[in-house]
């Protein structure tokens, strides 16, 4: 089954819409799906033109396509456990929160907290991701725990904060403090970043661009070769963060 949701024009287009109900499993039942526009609850058809094509008997047969002005729609794909969501443009914050399986494709940019505390599945963002991509909620000691996040563009600050499992790849640049408090999993940064892996206790971070303002509390333990983008690169290997008795591995390409 294919569900196409195209946004209707809104009087106040900057007010965010909270749409955690937009997940494949919800479209199997023909229940009234509602979302919130600011402090008002709205029926799905007040916000979207809805088209449904074909049948489905299980959530993994459901594909949702979101198009139009979707950059202010938050929490799409939250707790998603099967199926596919394709976003034709940008998407608002918290896309794929806690998702455990399935696939989300974002053709534009993703706002902050993309794949927050994700457990499984795949998120692929073809544009840029904002701050806290693949991170945790405030005060949460474990961020993303499993699955794959791929960002083809750049990501903001605090990418993969508290990463505990799974694999996050940012093909472009990252902002400040990627992999901060990281404790497991793998973070791959194709471009440049600043102050990677502060306070990390575990996991592996590989940086194939430049790491500016490297923290003084990582111990150089030699070098190693790693493959990225079809090429082999010689990397300096660090262990740390020693300020935090950390046993994480940070590999930075030798330029």
């Amino acid at each position, binding site marked *: 089954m294919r569900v196409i949701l195209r946004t209707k024009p809104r009087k106040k287009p900057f007010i965010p819409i909270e749409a955690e109900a937009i997940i494949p499993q919800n479209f199997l039942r023909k229940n009234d799906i509602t979302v919130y526009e600011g402090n008002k609850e709205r029926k799905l058809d007040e916000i979207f033109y809805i088209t449904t094509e074909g049948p489905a008997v299980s959530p993994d047969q459901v594909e949702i396509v979101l198009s139009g002005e979707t950059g202010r729609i938050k929490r799409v794909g939250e707790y998603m456990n099967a199926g596919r969501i394709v976003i034709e443009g940008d998407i608002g914050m918290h896309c794929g929160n806690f998702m455990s399986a399935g696939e989300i494709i974002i053709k534009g940019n993703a706002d902050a907290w993309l794949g927050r505390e994700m457990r499984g599945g795949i998120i692929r963002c073809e544009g840029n991701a904002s701050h*806290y991509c693949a991170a945790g909620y405030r005060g949460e000691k474990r961020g993303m725990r499993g699955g794959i996040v791929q960002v083809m563009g750049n990501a903001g600050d605090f990418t993969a904060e508290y990463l505990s499992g799974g694999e996050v790849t940012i093909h472009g640049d990252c902002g400040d403090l990627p992999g901060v408090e990281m404790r497991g999993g793998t973070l791959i940064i194709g471009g440049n970043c600043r102050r990677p892996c502060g306070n990390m206790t575990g996991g592996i971070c590989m940086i194939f661009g430049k790491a500016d303002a490297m923290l003084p509390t990582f111990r150089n333990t030699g070098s190693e070769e790693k493959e990225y983008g079809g090429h082999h690169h010689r990397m300096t290997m660090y262990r740390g963060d020693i300020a935090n008795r950390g046993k994480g591995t940070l590999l930075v390409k030798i330029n």
Partner: protein
Amino acid sequence: MKIEDVVCTFCGCLCDDLVVEVDGRRVVSVENGCTLANEKFMGDHRLQSPIRRNGKGWEHISYDDAIRETAEILCDADRPILYGWSGTHGEAQSIGIHLAELLGALVDNTSTVCHGPSILAIQEVGHPGCTLGQVKNRADVVVYWGTNPIDAHPRHMSRYTTFADGFFLKEAFRDRRLIVVDVRKTESANIADEFITIEPGGDYAVLSALRAIVRGKREIIPPSVSGVSREQLFRVADLLLSAKFGAIFFGLGLTMSPGKYKNVRNAIELTEELSRHTKYTISPMRGHWNVYGSNEVFTWITGYPYAVDFARGIAFYNPGETTSVDVLRRKECDACLVVGSDPGAHFPKACAEHLARIPTIQIDPHTNATTHLSRIQIPVAVTGIDAEGTAYRMDGVPIRTRMLFKGEYPSDTEILERLYTLVKEAKGP
């Protein structure tokens, strides 16, 4: 008439030893206060009555009209925001939060532009803090990191640290060692035993380095960390470790520089590391006189200290998403009520522009930068002068502020109670 033990409602020190002379409804003199306190008590530039913007300028309106129109604006909004709260007493803050819940509004206080990141760090790793009385009586090493108390909290040093004799420090100025860390040489740095000049944005790295040194990992420290030499870092670490009781105070230099709450977390973790060897505490230098109170009141009622979104009827908290600067910058909200703060002066330009675009109502005794962005302003009594209520000092000690005389202005509590009643009537049972 001279009134003793008056509480100064200006900065987070909440000094409670002022002597104020009052003549009818006028403050004549202030003793013991700093220059900021003198200006607060003696300054007399109050707005006379509620004002509303009309096409050409401002018109005076009655309190009834101002409150009714405010209620209508807030009830009509899909994403109202109630901001400020740190410049009023706890009783008014409490009504404000209930009003936000009733409206399905977002309610936020000034922590959003000051120590919000400190709270985020405390939520991650806890807060080894203490009262200022403990510091005064025990601390033999005091650190001011990213804060300049001589200018911003003028009596902090004379009441609690460098110049204040304590139970275990009979000659404080000689017995206490002072470390100041900043990006420039401030007045406070001039009297420090050790002044560390950090390159802007370098706090996190310096804190990490100090943590490693305190852990005995001196060999990994490079010759210079963010402009601070290895030798000075070793010297400072030794000074920190020499304390019997150390107190670290930090300000916006730490919370609002790159890394934000991670800087504060690193400072807290340094404090914990030092406490493995001796006794250390860490405390934020809170700015507004009752900003700590706003965090307390918010937390009792909603479970969260600031940036609480009631849009869905339940409290949701996510600084960066539900903080007023972010909400305004993204042009999300469609009405704003400002109480006891001046976002027009403190917020970035894009936020101020949005405040001017939407109906903004301000409840404040004085005209300020926010007045120029507002549609309506309602003047109120000044807590600590002609209104009273509970406030929290920067170390979390509640102090009852006093009313020095009964003036003609209603208090924040009275205005907000009337507003709440109108909104409740409009929303129905």
